[in-house]
């Protein structure tokens, strides 16, 4: 994948968020029962917020970005890949979402290593950090749920 400008990268990232939003919206529609429906709808809303944040991002602010340290619980990293199935359980839905964030973060991390321009690097770091935050939020939710069950 080649990106010519910061704007290109932001456009791509917005598309990825839109794809995630659509994925969760569609999954929510396919769920016959209230439980899964609600969870997917809430994830679709989250992705919408991420998309809006990127749409509002001023490319001029990228240069001043300083990466922060985001904890990584690595709950999803050792799990097998999981695909959407109608009626999947709540922990499975969380796993599915965690895996998606893990992959998105990895994608941006790889991009950081493949670009030379400082601005591009910074932007990919910024995007990776956003995904890391989402991953942490989901993994914390998952970890709390599992801790109660004795995991």
């Amino acid at each position: 994948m080649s990106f010519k400008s910061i704007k290109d990268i932001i456009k791509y990232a917005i598309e990825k968020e839109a794809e995630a939003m659509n994925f969760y919206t569609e999954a929510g529609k396919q769920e016959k029962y209230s439980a899964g429906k609600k969870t997917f709808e809430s994830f679709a809303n989250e992705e919408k917020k991420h998309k809006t944040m990127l749409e509002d991002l001023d490319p001029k602010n990228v240069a001043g970005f300083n990466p922060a340290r985001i904890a990584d619980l690595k709950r999803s990293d050792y799990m097998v890949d999981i695909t959407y199935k109608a009626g999947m359980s709540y922990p499975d839905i969380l796993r599915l979402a965690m895996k998606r964030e893990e992959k998105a973060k990895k994608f941006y991390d790889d991009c950081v290593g493949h670009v030379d321009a400082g601005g591009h690097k910074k932007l990919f770091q910024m995007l990776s950090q956003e995904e890391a935050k989402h991953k942490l939020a989901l993994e914390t939710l998952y970890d709390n749920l599992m801790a109660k069950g004795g995991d």
Partner: protein
Amino acid sequence: MSEEKETKAGEKPKKPKIPRQSMPEQDPHKRAGNFDSVTLGYKMEQAALEASRCIQCKKPFCISGCPVSIDIPGFIKLVKEKEYLKAAQHIKKYNLLPAVCGRVCPQEDQCEKVCIVGKKGEPVAIGRLERFVADYEAAHGEVPLPELPPKTGKKVAVVGAGPGGLTVAFDLIMLGHDVTIFEALHKAGGVLVYGIPEFRLPKAIVEREVQYLTRLGVDLKLNHVIGKIRTIDQLMKEDGFDAVFIGSGAGLPWFMDVPGENLNGVYSANEYLTRNNLMKSFDFPKHDTPIKKHKNVAVIGGGNVAMDSVRTALRLGADNAYIVYRRSRAEMPARKEEVDHAEHEGVQFKNLTAPVRVIGNEQGWVTGLECLKMDLGEPDASGRRRPVPVKGSEFIMEMDAVIIAIGTSANPLIAQTTPDLKLNKKGYIEVENETTCRTSKKGVFAGGDIVTGSATVILAMGAGRNAAKSIQQYLQTGEWTPNGKQ
């Protein structure tokens, strides 16, 4: 006024003169090889001595610590007066299954945690006294049947014969309604029979209580899976039930989703425990459902279910039975007593250890478990230190069975066949509140693990009691508006 000098209850905690009476137990080495009860119960003199430690508080904290508000000082006073049968009957006004709760309730987090005597020493052993009086009653002949009121002509269906369902059935038959329990398995009792092992809760106790219910006239239909044989709608529209209580528990196991989890020799704790407790695999050839003998067994998790599984593995002859738990001992949700018992029996604890892969041979059988060492990370916003993997700490343990005990959720069958039943996002049945236990569907009530997720026996029984009151109100008035108000 400091709490040391005088408590809100107005009692002055003094250092108790009589020490808390310890519970006789089977020797740990001996018991690790049999399925007999680990703890042996108080003798009469011990019970009287322990009862005399209670100072009969005017405002007893212990009652507020009990999820069903048992009159604890009331029953302990009767023990002190050696009125054991009366003591048992007194508890039964609040709790249908004292012999069960005396054994499995987490008293250390409930009544005993707040007992005033515990402020200056060890709390009164409320659970052990509860168990003593219930066992005394059982040992002294058949409990006479209470007089039943005239029949009301109303029919109630109870789905699931766990502690929640059994309590609803008891309370409603005592109000003159016809009660039918539909239970999916071939035995009634729910987790009490298929989950908690014999060495912690002898099955004869549960059978006795179930028989008491059938003697009272409760119709028990075993091997009846609701959602397959009949739906909730059919029960109400075609079979003439005026109300339904759903107490189907949370028996669907969770898995880790790590590679190798589908190898032979990997069990869910539910399957492993059910095969032992319900199918009596340990008693082969008397029961024709054996289980493979494993040498090295890893149980994943740190809750009661994990402790029950690992102690079962030891008793089935494992040379090494491990608990593999990703957090530290302080975070284990299992009762402390159960963790201590497991340790004394020889269970090996691998805490701060997370499995990442199950390894197998060409024939598809488990040969090992790859794990990572964990470290507690920095406190997060909630102040909690979560385990994070230590880089490069992978190691492999030789293993021929892996039992997964990391939690369960609701089986979706009833929800899938009852489309107008609202669930929360975790898949549990949504109720109006825990007092009315009303679901989104008129005439249908729910309680226990199917509403709260995996919790405790006493909470399921408390929910059953509340549901019975709410069902009674509905049957009498036919009202289905919030809180029964027009």
